[in-house]
């Protein structure tokens, strides 16, 4: 009979241990897992991303239900273990289930520390530890306006940023006079505060909360200085405490957490503990890397692999708040024995501090520029002797100690915290699979696939592993893993050799796959069309489904339809047609889009051609790497502040550029005054009319890469706006990487460079001419598709099987 292994706690540390055990000895144990939460194991570190709205709940799941099934693991979710009988070796759940064990792992994690003040049990007071907390915050944001976060540490600030994204007014209350005092010194803390204030956060520092006010639901906070604050939601993020109750009542030795030795053994034989619930050598941990270190030692020990004992972890931190780069590691406060080197550029808001003890780096704090963080962290972790070097040179990345750091890094060191990938796994993948590029490493091991923070270290490991045979300068961004060529090289070859089809490009340029992949096919299809607008025939099979079917696929396989409404202006006739279509095809949802359009969601695929026919409107291209919308404000026709006819200009721009193929989607806006009701500041090209002219803003983005547009140019007439827009968009078409938004493109090329091209009369005219050629090829796709019977049958109709006669 197999040994019975029971895990209490279905979170990252526990499941990591199980994964490691399965890797070492997949047959040895019969495994049972209990989790109090209803979900399978998810990535708790990324909760802040869920709250900030850029990630879905499903996307942070680490092990889905199938994983448990595939490994024959019995999983009980929503079930909490309430008792361990250490004598008879059984655990009992709150549902009365009793399960015997030979080995028991406790990975009960931690609980948010709730301040013991009056009112902390009121409705509207939450921690920020679980998906449920996150959901509660999101639902509060629908009903209420004001949020208060108690705690200006890592978790509190990530929560606050998320609440801002949800549209709430956010006050952060912090006991200390500066933020994140456990990771930052006062200088960095103040820089951080300033940056976050600019994002709209408000801070009450040096404040002690004494009571939570309100009836059943929170209405406000009162502080020790007698002042009060109105609020509808309180997020407690003052810290976490190890969840040790189960261990304590079951007679295990506990202190701050469950006490374990260097092999994660508790005081009772056969029972182990791992993760945030443990206390090891007097220390508790709340970050992911130490948990993975512990899980590794635990698995090795349980599987009798004689692992090296766990000696504790040095910690590093990166704040996951967009627009703010903060890094902290190790012991960062200088004193008599520890000396600091600081770089402070007030103008650029860059601050970097290294703390040395004799000749070893022991701590670092960085603000504004943190790309060297992971490298410095490895120096700290490995305790490299730096006596032979100018200490300040450590901050520059061509530092000679780099290689030796990689060499001395232990194989079980977790390089990628998000996905739990160790140095050893990366090295093994490079050697076994013959990987030579960062991209390949990323694909093969998942290292640096999530937040990207460890990319420099992964790159170093790659170079170090490849040794002298590798040419560092040859490391370049290739189109995808199918080729060793970069975008520029491919375009050069297409021009030089006159290549004309996707397949031809692949075979002439020695693609490593037979027919490419979902990355290079659409990219090549775009490049070929951009280079040969009149000759190239678009390849439908190289288009993503949305661009092939000219509708947006939804998660259930239905589609959404957005008809064109130039400038966001509509009329009774179009609205009537839309209403009739909604009735006739029983379309379940009609919604306004962010780009001032009407979206019909839940249309069956086979209905698409008929819906288009009944609408008899052009496609709104809501699915395309193309001009999406030109958003406009009402402008001088009606608005008392309007300085120009923004609707007319918006409609003209949209009619001119509709259907244009671009490297990524392109959004425009025209506002008739600086109040900017059409949000021109966050568009790929935003136009703001002013008295006597127009300002054009480039590279704005309101999505994942939130960025205010840069003032590109001022012009005086609507015709000039159209010309600059044409030249700008054509230059973007010709020089951007496929799937590169203008926000990234403007940063890569530099605003100055783009301005100089557009101001050069000759270049501008040539760009406008090439744009005109590109625009001449536009055919309205909905009409084209619905008129082709073959396309309708092949692309939109399902086949139904019938039993054959023979």
């Amino acid at each position, binding site marked *: 009979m197999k040994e019975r292994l029971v895990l209490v706690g279905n979170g990252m540390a526990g499941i990591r241990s199980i994964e490691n055990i399965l890797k070492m000895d997949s047959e040895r144990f019969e495994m049972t897992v209990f989790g109090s939460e209803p979900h399978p194991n998810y990535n708790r570190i990324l909760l802040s991303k869920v709250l900030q709205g850029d990630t879905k709940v499903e996307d942070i799941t680490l092990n889905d239900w199938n994983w448990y099934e595939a490994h024959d693991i019995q999983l009980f979710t929503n079930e909490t273990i309430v008792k361990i009988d250490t004598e008879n070796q059984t655990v009992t759940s709150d549902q009365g289930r009793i399960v015997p064990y030979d080995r028991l792992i406790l990975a009960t994690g931690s609980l948010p520390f709730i301040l013991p003040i009056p009112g902390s049990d009121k409705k509207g007071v939450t921690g920020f530890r679980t998906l449920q907390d996150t959901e509660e915050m999101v639902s509060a944001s629908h009903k209420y306006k004001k949020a208060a976060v108690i705690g200006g540490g890592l978790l509190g600030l990530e929560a606050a940023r998320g609440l801002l994204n949800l549209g709430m007014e956010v006050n952060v209350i912090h006991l200390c006079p500066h933020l994140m005092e456990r990771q930052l010194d006062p200088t960095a803390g103040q820089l951080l505060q300033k940056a976050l204030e600019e994002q709209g956060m408000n801070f009450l520092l040096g404040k002690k909360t004494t009571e939570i006010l309100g009836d059943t639901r929170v209405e406000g906070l009162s502080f020790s200085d007698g002042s009060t604050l109105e609020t509808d939601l309180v997020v407690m993020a003052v810290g976490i405490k190890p969840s040790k109750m189960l261990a304590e009542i079951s007679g295990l030795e506990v202190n701050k957490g469950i006490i374990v030795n260097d092999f994660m053994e508790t005081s009772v034989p056969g029972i182990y503990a791992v993760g945030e619930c443990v206390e090891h050598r007097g220390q508790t941990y709340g970050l992911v890397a130490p948990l993975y270190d512990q899980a590794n030692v635990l698995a090795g020990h349980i599987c009798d692999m004689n692992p090296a004992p766990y000696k504790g972890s040095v910690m590093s931190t990166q704040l996951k708040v967009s627009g703010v780069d903060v890094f902290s590691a190790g012991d960062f406060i200088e004193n008599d024995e520890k000396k600091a080197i600081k770089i402070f550029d007030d103008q650029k808001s860059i601050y970097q501090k290294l703390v040395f003890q004799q000749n070893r780096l022991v701590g670092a704090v960085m603000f504004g520029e943190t790309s060297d963080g992971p490298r410095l962290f490895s120096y700290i972790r490995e305790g490299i002797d730096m006596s032979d070097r100018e200490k300040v040179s450590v901050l520059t990345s061509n530092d000679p100690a780099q290689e030796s750091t990689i060499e001395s890094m232990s194989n079980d060191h977790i390089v990628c915290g998000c996905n739990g990938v160790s140095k050893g796994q990366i090295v093994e993948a490079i050697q076994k699979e013959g990987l030579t590029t960062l991209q390949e490493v990323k694909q*093969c091991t998942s290292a640096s696939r999530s937040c990207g923070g460890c990319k420099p270290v992964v790159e170093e490991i790659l170079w170090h592993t490849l040794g002298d045979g590798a040419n560092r300068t040859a490391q370049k961004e290739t189109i995808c893993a199918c080729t060793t060529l970069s975008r520029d090289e491919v375009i050069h070859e297409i021009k030089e050799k006159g290549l004309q089809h996707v397949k031809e490009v692949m075979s002439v340029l020695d693609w490593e796959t037979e027919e490419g992949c979902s990355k290079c096919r659409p990219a090549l299809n775009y490049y070929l069309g951009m280079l040969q607008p009149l000759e190239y025939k678009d390849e439908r*099979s190289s288009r993503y489904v949305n661009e092939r079917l000219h509708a947006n696929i939804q*998660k259930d*396989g239905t589609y959404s339809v957005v008809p064109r409404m130039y400038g966001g202006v509509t009329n009774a006739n179009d609205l009537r047609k839309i209403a009739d279509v909604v009735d006739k095809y029983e379309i379940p949802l009609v919604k306004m889009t962010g780009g001032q359009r009407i979206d019909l969601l839940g249309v069956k695929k086979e209905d698409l051609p008929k819906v288009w026919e009944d609408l008899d409107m052009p496609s709104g291209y809501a699915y395309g790497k193309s001009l999406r919308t030109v958003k406009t404000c009402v402008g001088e026709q009606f608005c008392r502040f309007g300085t120009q006819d923004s609707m007319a200009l918006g409609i003209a721009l949209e009619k001119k550029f509709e259907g244009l193929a671009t490297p990524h989607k392109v959004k425009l806006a025209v506002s008739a005054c600086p109040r900017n009701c059409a949000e021109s500041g966050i568009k790929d090209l935003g136009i703001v009319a002013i008295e006597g002219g127009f300002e054009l803003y480039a590279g704005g983005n309101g999505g994942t890469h939130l960025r205010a547009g840069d003032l590109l140019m001022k012009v005086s007439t609507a015709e000039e706006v159209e010309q600059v827009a044409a030249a700008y968009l054509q230059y973007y078409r010709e020089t951007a990487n496929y799937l590169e938004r203008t926000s990234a493109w403007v940063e890569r090329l530099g605003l100055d460079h783009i301005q100089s091209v557009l101001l050069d009369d000759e270049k501008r005219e040539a760009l406008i001419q090439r744009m005109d050629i590109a625009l001449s090829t536009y055919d309205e796709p909905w009409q084209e598709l619905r008129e082709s019977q073959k396309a309708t*049958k*092949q692309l939109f109709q*399902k*086949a139904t*099987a019938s039993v*054959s006669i023979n």
Partner: protein
Amino acid sequence: MTVSVVKVHIGTLSDFPMQLGKTVEAGTLELAVFQTSQQQFKAIENRCPHKGGVLAEGMVSGDYVFCPMHDWKIDLSSGNVQAPDDGCVKTYETLVEGNEVFVLLPS
């Protein structure tokens, strides 16, 4: 052991777009049937093991389809999901006789 299968007619050659997929309903089963650029027919279960994406709408490259939801890469012959993701989908035999296309389904 013999496995009994039924041969089921699903359409004629011209119903299937080249190097693309098509959804085929066969009783309670939903299949994704692809015509590869080598004019071979491949049939697999029409649900990605990741989040249930409709595989018939995926991009087809060689012997693989890329799920349109989150870009998982699936081998059309074996049904295996390619690394670094993991899983598999059911596959079904296909037959072309003249202009008619069939799949073999378990009876």
